């Protein structure tokens, strides 16, 4: 039973990781990457590592996502539905001005 649960969580994590690599929108990719951290938190609880799970939740899922989000905002990539090519062109415009 628990094997299946873990299997599903691992699958979700891998899907999240793939999505983080492949999605055009970087905000969505960041969210997908934080799915990996969340899945990892659950797995650490199953592995009897409550300390690590807490750290992963606080640092990996929380703080790291916050840092990445602040970075996105500052890079001007905080856009909900713009494909990344347009974003890149934008970024270039900004850099030139």
């Amino acid at each position, binding site marked *: 039973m628990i094997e299946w649960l873990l299997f599903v969580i691992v699958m979700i994590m891998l899907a999240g990781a793939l999505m983080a690599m492949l999605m055009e929108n970087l905000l969505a990719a960041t969210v997908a990457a934080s799915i990996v951290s969340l899945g990892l938190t659950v797995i650490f609880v199953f592995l009897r590592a409550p*300390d690590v799970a807490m750290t992963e939740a*606080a*640092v990996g899922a929380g*703080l790291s996502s916050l*840092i990445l989000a602040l970075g996105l905002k500052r890079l001007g990539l905080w856009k909900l539905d713009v494909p990344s090519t347009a974003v890149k062109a934008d970024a270039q415009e900004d850099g030139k001005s």
Partner: protein
Amino acid sequence: MHQFSSFLFLGGFLFFLSVLTGILPLGDPPMIIGQAIQNHGVSETGAANLVTAVVLGYRGIDTLGELSILFAAATAGGLVLATGKKKTQASADEDAGFIVKTAAELLFPLLVVAGLYIVIHGHLTPGGGFQGGVILAAAFFLPLLAKPSTTMNHNTMSLVEGFSGAAFIGIGLIGLFNHGAFLQPLLSKGVVGELFSAGTLPLLYLAVGLKVGAELAGLLANLNEEDDENV
């Protein structure tokens, strides 16, 4: 060419790791030092949480190194982001909405208390300086999100940061000069499971928590500052 070699490399990597599944003792590790720590950890450090015993006792230097890495990253980040000019007042952002502001005011004391609780109970329950420190950092960063016009007091932050780091090393040095070994656990072990037990470990974790909190809050505040070059 680059792509091809990358794929080749990844394929080899995957192959290596899948070969390993058959060799490694998955789920049944040899646990040599792990067993020794389980047998003596409580009597040697007095911490009920053995991970804390390892983090602050047996491998205290790793933790010191880790603190220094965070410090180095924050310092280097500050160096990279420093522009020389004084920061322009971030007036472009209007205040966040009422809900966020009220929530920030309400949450601030709660987060501080929760963070300190987690830090201080690190030797008894899961959690400790790092986890609590992150919560403390969140607590001090929250007002900045709610009211972008406020600035963090970097002087106080670097003071807290410097002295909590110095306290960690200082406790280590007291051990060195009084008992001959750096970071030797001092004070009485007390009764395992009580708050005032485990000798100096809670003090060390307090130093870790304050340092991590101050450093990360400073880092977040740095990242949150407006670019003045684009303006």
